[in-house]
C-alpha cells in the first residue's frame, strides 16, 4: 500500500515538473540565492535599493538555499529562472546535463583564504606538508585554490591529508585542533580570526588572482524566451555592484542586515571580496580544466564547453 502511495506521489511530482514557464516574454523572474552569503550581496542591494523594480522587473524569491547543489536542483526542476550561485555547482550541474543554464554575470571574484589553526607555526603553504587541511567539497573552487597553492609551493597533494568539512563546522574544528588548516570563503576566515580560532595564512587573491567565485546564472530556455528581461536583471545587478564598490561602509552595514554577521566582521570580510560583474571565460576555463582533471567534468573540449556556458554579452565583456 505504502509503495503504491509513494509511486503516486512520484508520478504527481513528475507531472508538476512538466509544467514550465510559458513562451511569451515575461517581466516576472523567479530567483534563487544562497541565504546569508556575503558574495551575493549585490542581489540584496539591488533588491533593497529597488534596482530591480526600476528596471520594471517583478522579482519573486522562490528560495533562499543553504547550499549550491540544492539551488541547482531547483533549476533542474524548472522552478528557477535566474539565480546567484557558486561557480562549482553551476558548472558541475551544467556539465552533467542536470541543469540547462548559462552564466550571464559574475557576482564576485576572489574572497577565500587558507586559514591555519592557532598554535600552528608555519610561514607559508610549504608548511602544510603532512598536515590535515579541510575543503568544503571535492572539486570546489577552494579545492582548486588549495591544489594551485600546493603546486606553486612544490608540495605533492598526496603528502597533504585533504578532507571535506562543511564551512560552518570548520571554525570549531580549527579551534579544537582537529584540522590544521581550512580553505574557505568569507566571512568564515574573518570569523575564525575574530574568534581566535585561526589566522589567515594566505588569501586566494594571492594564489589565483581574480578567480571566479559566485555567479549569476539563467535558465537557458528563459534566456532564449526573455533576453530583454535578463538584460534588465543584469543591468540592476551591475548597478548594485557599482553601488557596493562606491559605498563600502554602507554596503558592509547592508551585509550585516542580510547575513546577521556583526559589522566588525562584514567590514573586514568585504576587504577580501572583489565585487565584479564581468565573467572571465579564460578564468572559468582554467577552473573547468581542473574539474576535468579531477574527473568531475567529462566534456572533451573544455574550451568549447566553457564558451557554450558563459555569455558575456550582458556585461559588456570582451568574450574572453
Amino acid at each position, binding site marked *: 500500500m505504502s*509503495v503504491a502511495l509513494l509511486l503516486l506521489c*512520484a*508520478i504527481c511530482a513528475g507531472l508538476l515538473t512538466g509544467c514550465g514557464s510559458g513562451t511569451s516574454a515575461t517581466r516576472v523572474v523567479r530567483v534563487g540565492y544562497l541565504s546569508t552569503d556575503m558574495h551575493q550581496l549585490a542581489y540584496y542591494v539591488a533588491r533593497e535599493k529597488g534596482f530591480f523594480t526600476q528596471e520594471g522587473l517583478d522579482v519573486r524569491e522562490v528560495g533562499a538555499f543553504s547550499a549550491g547543489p540544492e539551488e*541547482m536542483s531547483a533549476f533542474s526542476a524548472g522552478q528557477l529562472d535566474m539565480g546567484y550561485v557558486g561557480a562549482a555547482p553551476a558548472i558541475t550541474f551544467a*556539465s*552533467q546535463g542536470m541543469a540547462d543554464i548559462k552564466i550571464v554575470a559574475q557576482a564576485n571574484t576572489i574572497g577565500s583564504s587558507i586559514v591555519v589553526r592557532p598554535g600552528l607555526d608555519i610561514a607559508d603553504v610549504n608548511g602544510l606538508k603532512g598536515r590535515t587541511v579541510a575543503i568544503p*567539497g571535492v572539486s570546489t573552487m577552494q579545492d582548486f585554490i588549495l591544489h594551485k597553492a600546493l603546486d606553486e609551493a612544490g608540495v605533492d597533494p598526496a603528502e597533504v591529508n585533504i*578532507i571535506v568539512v562543511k564551512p560552518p563546522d570548520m571554525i570549531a574544528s580549527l579551534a*579544537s585542533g*582537529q584540522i590544521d588548516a581550512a580553505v574557505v570563503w568569507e566571512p568564515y576566515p574573518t570569523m575564525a580570526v575574530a574568534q581566535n580560532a585561526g589566522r589567515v595564512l594566505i588569501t586566494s587573491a594571492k594564489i589565483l588572482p581574480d578567480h571566479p567565485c559566485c555567479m549569476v546564472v539563467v535558465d537557458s530556455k528563459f534566456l532564449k524566451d526573455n533576453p530583454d528581461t535578463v538584460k534588465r536583471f543584469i543591468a540592476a545587478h551591475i548597478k548594485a555592484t557599482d553601488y557596493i564598490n562606491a559605498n563600502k561602509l554602507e554596503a558592509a552595514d547592508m551585509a550585516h542586515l542580510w547575513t546577521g554577521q556583526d559589522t566588525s566582521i562584514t567590514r573586514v570580510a568585504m576587504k577580501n571580496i572583489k565585487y565584479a560583474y564581468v565573467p572571465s571565460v579564460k578564468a572559468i576555463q582554467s577552473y573547468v580544466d581542473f574539474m576535468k582533471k579531477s574527473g568531475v567534468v567529462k566534456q572533451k573540449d573544455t574550451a568549447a564547453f566553457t564558451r557554450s556556458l558563459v555569455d558575456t554579452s550582458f556585461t559588456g565583456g570582451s568574450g574572453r
Partner: protein
Amino acid sequence: MSRWWKIVPPLVALALWELLAGLGWLGKTPTPVQAVRGIYELIATGLPPGYHLQGHLLASLARVFTGFAVAFVIAVPLGIAMGAWPLASVIVDPLVEAIRPIPPLAWAPLALIWFGLGLASSAFIVFLGAFFPILLNTVSGVKSVDPHLVEAARTLGARKRTILARVLVPGSMPSIITGMRIGMGIAWMTLIAAELIGVKNGYGLGYMIMTARDLARYDLLVAGMVVIGVVGFLIDWLIRLGEKRLLRWR
C-alpha cells in the same frame, strides 16, 4: 518455496520506476539500470575517484554499530528500570520526551565540540537515533509482562533479582527486539547527518552520497541509497533470524 510471490511487489515497483524514469516523467531521476551501473562505478572507480564503495560501507558499518551498541547497552537496562520501578519512570520520562524529538542533525555542531572529528562524533549522532526506540520499546515490553506472572513468581518465593532475570527480562524480549529493529533502521537514517560533520578518513556512505549530490551525480546518489537500503534489509533479516532462535520458547 511457496512464497515466491513475495518478490513480485518489489519487481513491479522496479519496473514502474524504470518505466517512469525512462520516459522522463520524473525529471532527471536516474533509472534502476543507471543506479546499478552506478553501484558498479562506485566499486570499480570509487567516489571521489580512489575511494571505493567497500571502504565507504565498512566505515559506515563501524559508525552505525558503535552508535547502536552504545545505545543498546544504555537503553535496555534503563528501559527495564523504568518499566519495573515507577519512580525511575517519573524521573527519566520528562527528560526523554524532551530530548527525543530533537533532530539528530541539530546535535552535529555540539557533537563536533564534544567529540571532535571522527568515529566518536558520528557514532554519537547514530546513538541519538537508535537510543529512543530501544528505550521506549523496552519500557513497554516490561510493562506488558502479565502481573499475574510476577505475582505467581513472588508467591513461589522468588527474590526481586530472580523475578527480574527470569520473568521481566524474558517477557519483554520480543518488545526489546522490535525496539532494536526500529533503532537499527533509524540509526541508518541518521547516517547523512552523522557523516555531514565531516569524516576524517574520507570514507562513509552518507559522505559518499553527499559528494554525489555536490558533483551532480544523481546516478551515484541513488546507487548509494540502494546500497543503504539493501544493507539495512540484510541487517533487519539477521535480527529477525536471531529473534526466531532466541524466542523459540514462545
